[in-house]
């Protein structure tokens, strides 16, 4: 009965991207090469969005969006593929001076999202004091404790987002989202820090089916925090989305090798990123078949 009063938020990848505008500040959930909303990122690659400011515990989401020419500024503490420490696109774009960077301690990034989620102008934090994070962010201010200790701390400004993109294992049609892996990362904070939050998931299930997969505390985001739900199986590929699937290390290695070589990158783009999401997933299956040594069926005579 209550369910009938809930908004049905099911949408699709391209309609989510249709809600975004050039110049927006967009937060992307996950961590490094872990549970990134890659299907939504790939949908942005098909769009004309430009000059985005990306806030992320950065992984291939940041690299791909830079490679597509969609990014003006990255706000992060790192960009890494985890098992491959350096993200090639991020690396090359920084070395060319082609992308602006707000470089923060990763704990400061957490605090900036928490401040935004709480609608506070800033939150005090010790991290950053004495480091060159202060030098390369001259707008960063300190604040002195008004209590007897008088301690001076970094005043980490709120990282207010226009939109957040996250990927979870399960969700219902109303936007209640569930993670089944070991780490929630900061996806709930990204949603609360954002004006609009979009959730892709491996599978949309009936609300009554959510607790069949995991305990109540696995329900990381609720429908008050989410504005759109997309069912995108394989939507975190090639990052990890355990327990549904681990990181596709072979494909990530292919991505990283291609990203480091402009000619190879054109081949990679043509093979994997030129079409829509189903065509990406088909190309990935072909890649997996080749990895497994299954040859392509011979053309009929």
């Amino acid at each position: 009965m209550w369910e009938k009063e809930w908004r049905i938020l099911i949408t699709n990848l391209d309609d989510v991207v249709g809600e975004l505008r050039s110049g927006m500040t967009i937060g992307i959930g996950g961590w490094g090469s872990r549970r990134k909303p890659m299907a939504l990122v790939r949908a942005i690659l098909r769009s004309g969005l430009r000059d985005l400011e990306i806030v992320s515990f950065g992984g291939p989401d940041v690299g791909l969006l830079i490679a597509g020419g969609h990014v003006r500024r990255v706000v992060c503490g790192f960009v890494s593929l985890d098992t491959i420490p350096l993200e090639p696109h991020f690396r090359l774009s920084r070395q060319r001076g082609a992308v602006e960077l707000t470089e923060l301690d990763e704990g400061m990034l957490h605090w900036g999202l928490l401040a935004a989620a709480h609608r506070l102008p800033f939150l005090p934090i010790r991290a950053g004091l004495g480091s060159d994070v202060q030098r390369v962010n001259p707008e960063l201010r300190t604040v002195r404790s008004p209590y007897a200790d008088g301690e001076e701390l970094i005043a980490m400004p709120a990282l207010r987002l226009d939109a957040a993109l996250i990927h979870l294992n399960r969700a219902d049609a109303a936007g209640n989202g569930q993670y089944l892996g070991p780490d929630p990362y900061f996806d709930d904070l990204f949603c609360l820090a954002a004006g609009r939050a979009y959730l892709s998931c491996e599978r949309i299930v009936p609300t009554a089916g959510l607790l069949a997969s995991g305990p109540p505390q696995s329900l990381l985001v609720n429908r008050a925090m989410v504005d759109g739900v997309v069912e995108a199986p394989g939507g975190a590929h090639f990052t990890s989305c355990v327990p549904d699937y681990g990181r596709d290390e072979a494909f990530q290695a292919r991505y990283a090798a291609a990203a480091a070589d402009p000619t190879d990158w054109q081949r990679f783009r043509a093979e994997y990123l030129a079409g829509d999401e189903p065509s990406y997933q088909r190309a990935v299956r072909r890649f997996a078949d080749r990895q497994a040594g299954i040859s392509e069926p011979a053309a009929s005579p």
Partner: protein
Amino acid sequence: MTAPSPDNNPGPGTSPAMDGEMVPAAPLGRPSRAEVCVVACAEAWRGDGAILASPMGLIPTLGARLAQLTFAPGLLLTDGEAHLLAPDGADVPDGADGPDGTDGDGRVTEGWLPYRSVFTMVAAGRRHVLMGAAQIDRFGNQNISCIGDWSRPKAQLLGVRGAPGNTINHPVSYWVPRHSRRVFVDRVDMVSGVGYDRAGALGPRAARFHELRVVVTNLAVLDFQTADHTMRLRSVHPGVTAGDVTAATGFPLAIPGDVPVTRLPTGQELALIRGQLDPAGLREREIP
């Protein structure tokens, strides 16, 4: 001073350990340089009690696990994801199936520590990290962010990651697998981890949790136990001279009159490293 040469290809044979303790003969043989480094990393956590040990790199990870199995059982260790793993007490060979509740690696999950909780442990000071350094100076300022001018670096590396927060909140040590003048520099390009001079400039209140413990390299162990907290040679690994270390260091090092040799692994430690923690010998690939 000189020290006996390490044996990088441990083979059968009897060899008295250099600290006078008898290392069991075949099949253990002499410790390799990598094994000396594992023990030197383990020593970084001696006396830390029940705190989160966060090693970056294979040799620091082996060191942390060795410390947890021997003289520092209070240490908390993660699997690199969100599980805290404790020794399960069962004598399970690495890679074999363990009893119920074990991961087959001789370890059992004792807790849950997602990234958000790691940040809380950092701020609470209940952690000692042993991390890498692309550059480090004589006050222990460390750089993992980028090489060259920050606005357009010659080489973009990881970014500062958690180094600023780590160094201002809890003890930090460093692991440098290739001790050279490219790493030990006069001035780092982007201060990620805060050194003693910058911590001192913040004043005693802001810097009260700042502590750089040791720098372990493939040549030596260094620390900051000098009057002005500049880097000091604490010990050299077997086969390395103080001159070797200063030649590979791009700033003047404090050298005590008598530089001891880094403590060698005990027979028990060697058996744990070789039999349980790293039977494939991957540690030998992390140093030159």
